[in-house]
């Protein structure tokens, strides 16, 4: 059964005429890990921002159904409450806002939006400490302001921590492997793999095959000029790695 | 009786300047329009006099106290003066291959100036006033109205000569111009210059101010700059006036759209000096960089006062000023970044840093932000202190003698402002940077004791 169905998605940068997504069609099945690969400028990050609802982009056509409901008219927080999570390529630093404050605010905002009671503080602390430990996030990192003074790897681990606490239906990982050394990559991948379930889907956006050695995808889609031009199994990623994008793009053209 | 109703006692300088205007005004060139400007400026000066510490913009440079007397207005330079001028001009030229534009005692001397590149015209202000060039009187009137600055008004009152440099649209000038301004005797010298860089044109202009030691001359000079659409002006300035001199310089710059303006002033001369910069963005997507290095010793007093006016959106400005103070010198930095309502996406950053080399100097900083638009990134920083003790110790532990260690660190301090100056428009930029850095080192090594 499909969890996320994107049809004819067309989007441009808000103040410019430059079209970035050109009638993109993509279906993500429930429980599936889908990799989206593509060269620079193919629209990978744009896709993730458009799905999350960033103001800088304007959707000119198409729809994106999450569990049958079009999320495109929703505000970013409504999309988050609907179960969409974006692990940012460049997570933001928020000076003065403590990690725990932020995590609790986010969890409770989503719980409220779903009509649930707010989480009790002792339960919250227990929950965070447990998940943080799995990701090698120490107490000192939890005491600091959100992402402030974190290394690239720490920021990415922090994204995965947020994902594991917010338990989304679909998680989009935008170049989560960029800027990570191999050890950090493993920790992040383990964090993702722990969360794989028949109810949850992942969209793993990446430039390189390397991440897919650790997060094994069910399907691989190739994005070029704002459209999916080819889809296949995990072997497609290996083919791209071996032959480069030019080859695939040419064949598709 | 209220404070404002009190007419302050006129100082000797104010009385002398007022008297000089009465005597000389008939001799000044130009028609009714210019005379009206002079008279209006005179009325202002007569009413307000020289600025003093109760005038907020002049709080730290009380000219009423620092300029007790006024020298007589400069007359035609005599033979002795001319030979002194020749020597000073050659000193100012140094090894630069720039085209000289020579100003002696405030007067433009066409005969001593070099051959001009195509697309560049140079006119004496006095000739232009006689010819009744309306653009000049309009520019002067606009500046009076916009800034209401007492020293600019004083300059307008004595508007007589200077130089007008026009760079035709689209001209990329490969040779630098070098305005060399010398004073030969104890005069009050007033001069006004205009540089207009046409659309798409680019040019590098150097400016040197020199004069004899031990002569208490006074100079009040104004430079108007217009940088047209897509044009570039890089402006390097050296102020090495004589040790008794009073030097007041005002720069009024209007920057058009997609333009670039970079100015650097290195100040070591003068007993009392003030360098005013009034820069305004009038078109979007432009960039301006304002820099300065000031080195003062004994009882020298130097003031840098700037107003960076972001009147339109999408412009970027950088202001970086370094002050090095020795003995009982006094430094002043006042910088204001204004962001007008709707000047969104403004990016402005200002920094003033001071190093004190002795226990006697004073430094006053007033870095201001005045912001009326929300989507901006503006910052200013300011530091005052001694040379880093740890660095001094480290250098000395490597065998560098105290004095050289100080020179090394001060040069490094000044380097930041000098090294990034210009983006290659000034042809002699490498020579210029080397000369300026060299002057920092020389200044440090010439310290007594």
């Amino acid at each position: 059964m499909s969890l996320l169905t994107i049809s004819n998605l067309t989007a441009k940068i808000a103040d410019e005429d430059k079209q970035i997504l050109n009638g993109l069609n993509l279906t993500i099945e429930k429980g599936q890990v889908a990799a989206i690969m593509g060269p620079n400028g193919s629209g990978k990050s744009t896709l993730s921002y458009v799905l999350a609802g960033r103001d800088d982009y304007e959707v000119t056509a198409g729809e994106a159904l999450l569990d049958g409901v079009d999320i495109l008219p929703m505000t970013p927080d409504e999309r988050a409450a609907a179960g969409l999570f974006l692990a940012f390529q460049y997570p933001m630093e928020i000076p003065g806002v403590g990690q725990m404050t932020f995590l609790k605010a986010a969890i409770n905002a989503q719980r409220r939006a779903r009509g649930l009671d707010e989480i009790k503080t002792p339960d919250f602390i227990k929950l965070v400490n447990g998940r943080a430990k799995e990701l090698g996030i120490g107490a000192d990192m939890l005491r600091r302001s959100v992402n402030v003074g974190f290394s690239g790897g720490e920021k990415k681990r922090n994204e995965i921590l947020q994902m594991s606490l917010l338990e989304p239906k679909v998680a989009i990982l935008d170049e989560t492997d960029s800027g990570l050394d191999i050890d950090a990559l493993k920790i992040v991948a383990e964090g993702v793999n722990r969360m794989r379930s028949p109810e949850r889907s992942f969209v793993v956006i990446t430039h390189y095959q390397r991440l897919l050695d650790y997060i094994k995808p069910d399907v691989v889609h190739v994005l070029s000029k704002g459209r999916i031009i080819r889809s296949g199994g995990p072997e497609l990623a290996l083919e791209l790695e071996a032959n480069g994008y030019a080859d695939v793009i040419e064949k598709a053209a | 009786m209220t404070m404002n109703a009190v007419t302050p006692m006129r100082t000797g300088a104010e009385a002398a300047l007022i008297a000089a205007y009465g005597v000389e005004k008939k001799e000044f060139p130009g028609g009714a329009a210019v005379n009206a400007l002079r008279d209006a400026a005179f009325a202002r000066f007569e009413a307000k006099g020289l600025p003093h510490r109760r005038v907020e913009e002049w709080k730290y440079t009380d000219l009423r106290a620092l300029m007790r007397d006024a020298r007589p207005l400069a007359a035609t330079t005599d033979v002795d003066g001319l030979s002194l001028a020749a020597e000073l001009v050659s000193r100012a030229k140094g090894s630069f291959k720039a085209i000289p534009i020579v100003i002696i005692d405030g007067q433009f001397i066409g005969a001593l100036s070099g051959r001009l590149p195509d697309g560049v015209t140079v006119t004496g202000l006095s000739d232009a006033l006689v010819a009744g060039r309306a653009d000049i009187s309009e520019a002067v009137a606009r500046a009076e109205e916009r800034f209401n600055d007492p020293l600019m008004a004083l300059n307008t009152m004595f508007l007589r000569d200077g130089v007008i440099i026009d760079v035709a649209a689209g001209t990329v000038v490969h040779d630098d111009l070098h305005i060399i301004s010398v004073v030969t005797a104890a005069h009050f010298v007033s001069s006004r210059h205009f540089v207009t860089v046409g659309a798409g044109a680019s040019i590098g202009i150097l400016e040197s101010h020199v004069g004899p030691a031990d002569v208490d001359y006074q100079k009040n000079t104004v430079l108007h700059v217009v940088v047209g659409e897509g044009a570039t002006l890089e402006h390097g300035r050296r102020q090495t006036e004589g040790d008794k001199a009073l030097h007041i310089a005002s720069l009024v710059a209007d920057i058009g759209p997609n333009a670039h303006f970079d100015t650097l002033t290195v100040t070591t001369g003068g007993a009392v000096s003030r360098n005013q910069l009034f820069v305004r963005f009038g078109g979007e997507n432009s960039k301006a960089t304002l820099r300065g290095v000031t080195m003062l010793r004994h009882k020298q007093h130097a003031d840098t006062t700037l107003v960076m006016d972001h009147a339109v959106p999408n412009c970027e400005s950088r202001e970086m000023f370094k002050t090095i103070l020795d003995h009982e010198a006094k430094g002043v930095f006042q910088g204001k970044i204004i962001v007008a309502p709707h000047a969104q996406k403004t990016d402005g950053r200002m920094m003033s840093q001071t190093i004190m080399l002795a226990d006697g100097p004073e430094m006053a900083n007033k870095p201001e932000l005045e912001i009326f638009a929300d989507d901006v990134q503006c910052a200013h920083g300011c530091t005052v202190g001694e040379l880093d003790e740890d660095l001094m110790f480290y250098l000395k532990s490597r065998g560098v003698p105290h004095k050289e260690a100080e020179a090394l660190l001060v040069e490094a301090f000044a380097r930041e402002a000098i090294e990034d100056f210009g983006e290659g428009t000034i042809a002699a930029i490498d020579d210029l940077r080397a000369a300026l850095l060299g002057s920092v080192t020389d200044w440090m090594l010439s310290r007594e004791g």
Partner: protein
Amino acid sequence: MPAVQETVDTVRAIDVDQYKYGFSTDIEMELAPKGLSEDIVRYISARKSEPEWMTEWRLDAYRRWLTMREPTWARVHYPQIDFQDLYYYAAPKSNPAPKSLDEVDPAILETYKKLGIPLREQEMLAGIEPQNRIAVDAVFDSVSVVTTFKEELRKAGVIFGSISDALHEFPDLVRQYLGTVVPATDNFYATLNAAVFSDGSFVYIPPGVRCPMELSTYFRINEQKTGQFERTLIIADKGSYVSYLEGCTAPKRDENQLHAAVVELVALDDAEIKYSTVQNWYPGDAEGRGGIYNFVTKRGDCRGDRSKISWTQVETGSAITWKYPSCILRGDDSQGEFYSIAVSNGAQQVDSGTKMIHLGKNTRSRVVSKGISAGKSQNTYRGLVSAHRKAKGAKNFTNCDSLLIGENCGAHTVPYIESKTSTAVFEHEATTSKISEDILFYCRQRGLTAEEAVALVVNGFVKDVLQQLPMEFMVEAQKLISISLEGSVG
């Protein structure tokens, strides 16, 4: 549409006026005749049965004031104040000098209850650890109506009460210190205050005593057309410590009301004074009608070696704020601190900052100022840091950041940094920016609404200052900031 814009628009629709303390209390008051003259000064002094020297001191100040002009250098604009159209003294008629709580007009007690300021000691004691107790001096218009925990404090040697009482009980102490930090001739408003001040708090902490509880004064302006001119004097003798908090509110009225207070702090050798203010005077409505004109002179004198004075202020109220809590660092190794949050919304105008005057050797100061402007407000930081020739080794660090919300407000920074000694190290940094769209988007992607995201980021922005407040007031201040920004950010 950018998130900030969206938020601004959403809340523009909501009533901007969120002021919770705008009710007025209906009780009979005794007013001095309207206007200001030597007779009025004598009247005030007589009402308080002051010693003759005090009456003369006031009259000297009044005569001096007549020769002074209102300062115009601040970035605030308001119509000319008619100083003859004000009442300079207003006291509850029933009992202007109650001896105990039982004598206080019940309407006043009800007022403080509504404001959340309990005045009955037994109510305050319920469930509170002794170290967390707070003693309150409640000033209603011109008079102090009650001071709590007076007796318990007296056991520790601490004098805490109204300055009027202190003039009778400890005249020598008051005379020794009054006007020594802010001279009666200091500035237009301070001089006016010296002439007509009605009440305020007096605190004396004896040598070596750590004040056993937080002290606080709660100022309430109630009467119409009344100026409030309180005067506070705090003396921390050698080696003592006190933490003091000041709160203020006023009813919503269409007219502007004048508040011109003077606060003097004296810290002797090794003493420390921590002075916190949560200023929530009525700010006026969104169009700028009504609100308090707050012209305040606050100054601390670190008179002794190794003394320390720390100012923390959360300024959310007043139509006009003109206020520069300052430190004179006279003693060697003394320290001054200024932590400030100034929030302006609607048509508010804030011109506030500090002066750190380094006179002694190895004196240190720290300034952290966070300004938040929204609506059509103008918010200016104005500060002076100076090191005199003898202030060898002086150090200052200043950080002032401004945050703009919406395109119709202004944020301005006017620091003066003057050094006359090479051994001083001054560092100053200032930034102005708007809330980052990227950060807001990040927060909203995690499920926070636009309003929640802005509130979270603003709280992060002011955190360094909030942390300086006594614990009990931190949460209160945090809420106050959010409320003040309602109507601009939700």
